[in-house]
């Protein structure tokens, strides 16, 4: 295992310490329980927007803490949902008297831990709403299954909801907006390589030189299908088809598009992917009005990409354009 780390057991606290040292103007880090929160929290009168998840997806979520995005983010162990006390204490720290909005990715662990935290908070009189992100089209949505994974749309939702909270949306309006964002986002990902969890010391799965994994999640788990490696344009078609067909996206739709690196894929390759995504959208009459190209929701050093399309209306776009100032996303200020 080749990583720039010290003791594998200390990866999460050490990375958080480094973040705290690097961005004292933007964030503070609380340990035991671990959470990252805005340096200027609490913001009185504003709904507190919090999220969290396993570590290993950086910059999501801890890199998105700051003005216009998250008030707090709770990092679990690598690929492990955070525990209720993290969300409970983070929420209390950043609560501004206007309630708490939790953005929760649809995994059994994330859902249960955030639910338990919400129960604790409500038990103490806090208003809490949750928005569930379940946008990964690699998995069929089914009543009797775990449902779809929460992936790329999470990043877009955090931006849009964070801006809306700055704009003074109340908790109910935020939750409704969040659900609308969640319903209109679709993602799919693929991997060229696996990743290595530090405390495990070897890759979670092995891919041959000629193989790729289609329909991956963000926790390094194997995907839906293992297939022979193809060229980028064919891979993009492979990912875009279920994304477009599922909502479905239609001619005339305006979308925010994220072409995301799983961590180990360089920027030039992401632009090669974006080129094909743009071509497919153009051919389908879909207008990409905003985009993100880079590493936003990763799986440690995994090589691969995920594509997210969010059908956006004027409200979402205005909120997208609202200023944001976090370690990993910044514009307008």
């Amino acid at each position, binding site marked *: 295992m080749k990583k720039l780390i010290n003791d594998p057991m200390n990866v999460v606290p050490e990375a958080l310490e480094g973040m705290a040292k690097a961005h004292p103007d933007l964030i503070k880090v609380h340990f035991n*329980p671990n959470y990252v929160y805005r340096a200027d929290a609490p913001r009185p009168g504003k709904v507190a927007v919090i999220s969290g998840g*396993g570590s290993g997806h950086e910059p999501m979520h801890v890199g998105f803490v700051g003005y216009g995005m998250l008030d707090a983010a709770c990092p*679990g*162990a*690598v*690929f*492990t*949902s*955070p*525990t*209720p*006390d993290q969300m409970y204490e983070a929420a209390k720290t950043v609560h501004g008297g206007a309630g708490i909005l939790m953005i929760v990715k649809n*995994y*059994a*662990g994330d859902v*249960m*831990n955030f*639910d*338990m935290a919400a129960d604790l908070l409500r038990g103490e009189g806090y208003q809490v709403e949750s928005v569930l992100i379940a946008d*990964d089209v*690699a*998995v069929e949505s*089914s009543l*009797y*299954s*775990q449902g779809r*994974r929460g992936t790329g749309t999470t990043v877009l939702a955090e931006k849009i909801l964070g801006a809306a909270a700055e704009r003074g949306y109340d908790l109910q309006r935020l939750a409704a907006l969040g659900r609308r964002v969640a319903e209109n986002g679709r993602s799919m990902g693929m991997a060229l390589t696996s990743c290595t*969890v530090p*405390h*495990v010391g070897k890759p*979670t*799965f092995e891919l041959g030189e000629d193989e790729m994994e289609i*329909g991956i*999640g963000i*926790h*390094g*788990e*194997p*995907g*839906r299908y293992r297939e022979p490696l193809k060229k980028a344009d064919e891979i993009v078609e492979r990912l875009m088809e279920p994304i477009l067909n599922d909502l479905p996206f239609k001619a005339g739709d305006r979308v925010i598009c994220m072409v995301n690196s799983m961590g180990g894929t360089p920027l030039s390759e992401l632009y090669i992917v974006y080129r094909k995504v743009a071509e497919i959208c153009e051919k389908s009459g879909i207008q990409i009005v905003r985009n993100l190209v880079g590493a936003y929701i990763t799986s440690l050093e995994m090589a691969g990409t995920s594509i997210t399309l969010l059908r956006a209306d004027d409200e979402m776009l205005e909120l997208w354009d609202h200023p944001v100032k976090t370690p990993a996303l910044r514009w307008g200020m």
Partner: protein
Amino acid sequence: MPVMRDDVVAWLERCAAVLEENRDYLTQLDAAIGDADHGANMDRGFKAFMAKLPSVADKDIGTILKTLGMTLVATVGGAGGPLYGTFFLQMGVKTANKLMLTPEDWAEALEAGINGVIARGQARPGDKTMVDALLPALEAFKEAIRNSDSFGKALQRMAEAAEQGMKATIPMVARKGRASYLGERSAGHQDPGATSSYLILKAAADTWGHVT
């Protein structure tokens, strides 16, 4: 003979040891159909409880199990934290103030714990989860007691059923949890959560083997 409070403590100490020994094994199972963290999660949780145990080891069984449950919730994370947390919490609620467990006490506690897991996780038999080891284990224990088996024998039946249930997850296609994202590819692999459940119940049967 009932299971005494100190026997419960011994059981939980054995759980911690067994989960530490099997950390890499559970990791491996969770790598095949998950994100490779189940071994570390369970080990972390029980180690955290071992640090707390001295402060509750002289209390009633309910307090000990509730402390375990809350510790797991606060330290395990993932799917296992809330599920095992609820499991032991509900067991603890059912055994409040008790200093010993009769077979009926154990059956009720186990049932309460499993019901908590099912309520929280919404898994059903055949979904390829810990429930597939826990439920058969409970049924086997209850049946053994109905058949007037001794406590010790019933615990053995419980452990054997847990083992069978764990192995029965191998061919299943997961419908809950992270393995469900793999679809058909989840078949052919033993579920990590069912495995840790088996280890926990087996630890009870082994620790309490002297109980007749």
